[in-house]
């Protein structure tokens, strides 16, 4: 049971909300956008949906905000059904769609005021809620949104999504196309937001952002491949990962491919090649490599164990599912 009282001027303890997704299926004509998705997100969690375009992230968010209706299954936000109680859900949800949903011909201030007004509040009334974010763009409040840099647009869009004191914040690819510094700052902001007790769902195609979430779902073509904390996902990586380098990086991939059945994948990774193996230890692998790589061509051969990243796990999971 949650008691929600919104009293202007008084910062009440934010009662955040849970999201329950049960057996959701959604088809667009022949395309299965989501296949039997079941997921439970407790109040106050920062939850990440990680996956490439076409994974179903946006569709899932649109189902939660009731912009779309599911073919099968149900979604409950704070116990409210997304289909029948969508009006109540919309009142407590802040949604930032994939494209920033700003009016580029309106100024920063006008954008915020507009979004505040459609939720029957105002910038003045709720300034304290978005202070953290808004302060960074306030010096440009007379500038048109279209003239802002990517990072500033992103912060403005976040301000607009936060202005009505939502208890659930849904951010669809907020960091796509934004540079690494702005992305970093954005994630720092999200962490601060989370401390106020708000539940945050965020999607991203950048695998390296997974580690910033409490828990993540790895999504691919409408399936949830894994749901867990980032560290557990990495710990669950099956097999071993090595990095090898030599003086002739152009030839090394071809020279290492297909030399032993226990060596599964050889992939060039910048200055190194990554090799995945099973049932083979450092020493044995070293011997095999020494034997295969021609000493005249490959000098300074280096072999080290590599720590798998979320992307490696993602790839392994994709392989498993075929």
């Amino acid at each position: 049971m949650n008691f929600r009282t919104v009293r202007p001027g008084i910062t009440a303890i934010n009662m955040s909300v849970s999201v329950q997704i049960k057996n959701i299926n959604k088809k667009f004509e022949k395309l299965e956008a989501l296949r039997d998705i079941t997921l439970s997100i407790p109040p106050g969690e920062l939850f990440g949906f990680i996956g490439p375009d076409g994974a179903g992230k946006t569709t899932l968010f649109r189902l939660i905000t009731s912009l779309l209706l599911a073919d099968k299954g149900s979604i409950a936000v704070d116990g409210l059904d997304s289909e029948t109680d969508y009006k109540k859900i919309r009142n407590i949800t802040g949604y930032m769609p994939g494209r920033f949903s700003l009016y580029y011909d309106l100024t920063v201030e006008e954008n915020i005021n507009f979004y505040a007004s459609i939720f029957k509040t105002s910038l003045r009334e709720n300034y304290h809620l978005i202070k953290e974010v808004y302060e960074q763009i306030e010096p440009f409040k007379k500038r048109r949104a279209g003239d802002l840099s990517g990072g500033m647009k992103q912060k403005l869009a976040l301000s607009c999504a936060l202005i009505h004191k939502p208890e659930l914040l849904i951010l669809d690819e907020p960091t796509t196309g934004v540079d690494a510094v702005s992305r970093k700052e954005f994630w720092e902001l999200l962490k601060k937001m989370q401390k106020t007790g708000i539940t945050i769902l965020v999607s991203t195609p950048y695998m390296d952002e997974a580690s910033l979430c409490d828990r993540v779902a790895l999504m691919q073509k409408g399936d949830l491949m894994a749901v867990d904390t980032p560290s557990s996902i990495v710990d669950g990586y099956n097999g071993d990962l090595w990095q090898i380098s030599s003086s002739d990086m152009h030839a090394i991939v071809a020279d290492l491919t297909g030399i032993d059945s226990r060596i599964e994948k050889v992939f060039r990774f910048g200055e190194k090649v990554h090799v995945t193996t099973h049932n083979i230890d450092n020493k044995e692998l070293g011997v095999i490599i020494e034997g295969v790589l021609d000493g005249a061509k490959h000098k300074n051969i280096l072999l080290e164990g590599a720590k798998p990243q979320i992307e490696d796990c993602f790839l392994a999971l994709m392989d498993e599912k075929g």
Partner: protein
Amino acid sequence: MKDDDHIIVVENLVKKFGSFVANDNLNFFVRRGEIFGFLGANGAGKTTAIKILSGLSKPSSGKASVAGFDVGRQSEKVKRNIGYMSQRFSLYDDMTVKENFRFYGGIYGLSAKGIKQKTAHLLQKLDMLDYKDMLLSKIPLGWKQKLAFSVAVMHDPAVVFLDEPTGGVDPITRRQFWELIYEKASEGTTIFVTTHYMDEAEYCERVSIMSEGRIEALDTPSNLKKKYNVNTMDEVFVRIARSDA
């Protein structure tokens, strides 16, 4: 030209828009066959620099040469010797795979026969010969990007500029895409790539990081990580781009 091996040479390059300095005295070179990552925050001046290097915009002062041609005075020759691919600008959705190849081949003055051979060869490499008569709109994003890359290198350019080539594709496709890049690079084509994926920066042989119009760092990813004593390119990037913010 100082070194025949240097396919891109940039010396004291400055580009100003009014009082705004977009490129502030850039100096660097890129070797033939190198995979060069060109990184920077939004608005750091990357796009301006790429426009100059691809002959679309003239430098305010200083000079740059690509494939031995001056970008200011010989921009037409520069354009003939480069390929370009970006996530936004790629192929025509309402044309078939073959028609796209034919169109771009025609732009670069390839003969009809040359186009046919190239198309067959490139599609074979992608294992997509069966799809040559399919409309681009019916083809999944990841494949499209591989096709777009093949089209961009169809005329065997000396340098290919890739502007955020892998945005939005799944990791497997991205790796396959990079395999194409490595293969092309080993044939001697220079790859000049921008990306927001910092882990992708590790795929490059050398990277430069721009901030506020200047190149703040240029080295191999491992040297940069060593220099800043961090584990990932992401941290390197944030250190550099934030230091003066």
